[in-house]
């Protein structure tokens, strides 16, 4: 079991904790960039995120059929992107804003998704060090398994 890390929104109203999978990623899709003013930089929780304070301040927005975006209703901090339960993630998956965490040591930026959603006027350095996936690559990962 990975170390559990704690996180908080900008005002500190919402506090969360989560065990994290290795690897930090950036999503360049237009929805993420409209939501948070730039690519969404996130880490993946192992299992669910535990809300330890401020649950009543958390609001969610169903941004697509397969996910909802949670944010703090008081300060506007994006909290997490929650992929709804599916064949691939029976409990859903919580993709948590990286910068909420009190301790970000050890975060390694190793993947980018929806790279074809990048408008083209910015890029992160070190692309060759990361797994970079287009929208089609991401959807292929989630495609229903073929019948055997």
């Amino acid at each position, binding site marked *: 079991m990975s170390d559990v890390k704690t996180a908080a929104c900008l005002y500190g109203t919402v506090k969360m904790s989560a065990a994290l999978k290795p690897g930090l990623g950036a999503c360049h899709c237009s929805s993420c960039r409209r939501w948070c003013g730039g690519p969404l*930089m996130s880490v993946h929780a192992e299992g669910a995120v535990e809300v330890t304070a401020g649950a009543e301040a958390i609001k969610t927005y169903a941004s697509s059929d397969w996910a909802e975006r949670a944010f703090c209703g008081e*300060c506007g901090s994006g909290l997490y992107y929650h992929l709804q339960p599916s064949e691939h993630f029976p409990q859903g998956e919580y993709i948590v804003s990286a910068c909420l965490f009190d301790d970000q040591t050890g975060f390694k930026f190793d993947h980018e998704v929806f790279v074809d959603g990048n408008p083209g006027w910015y890029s992160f350095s070190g692309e060759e060090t990361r797994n970079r996936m287009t929208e089609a690559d991401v959807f292929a990962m989630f495609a229903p398994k073929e019948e055997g």
Partner: protein
Amino acid sequence: MESGSCLCGAVTFQGQRSNRGVGVCHCKMCRVQNSGPLMAVRFEGGVTLTEARGLKWFASSDIGKRGFCAECGSTLFWSAPDAADGDWDVSVGTLDDAADEKIFEHIFVEFQPAYYDFADDTPRKRSDEA
């Protein structure tokens, strides 16, 4: 005339985007609110709100307040506390068409975490130089 909106449409706006380019802020507050640096532009003559039912402001510090949509959580604007109405920085992701943009500077770079960097060679300014 540029238009923009949050994810859900509860805040929409328009105005003339300046040709200054995109400023990228790496301060801790921008990053906590937005999962990473905030990329913003200026509008000549300010922002005109065409729908404001979702707009909520949060005073994040003595020097700034942040406008976001309380229905979908989209980050929209950054404003000095005493700025005139509409004299706000605008999150570039909320613009309906920003395909032709360019970064012109990075600010508050002393707060940028080590795990990312941008590939452009525009000026990097510390908080005391911004």
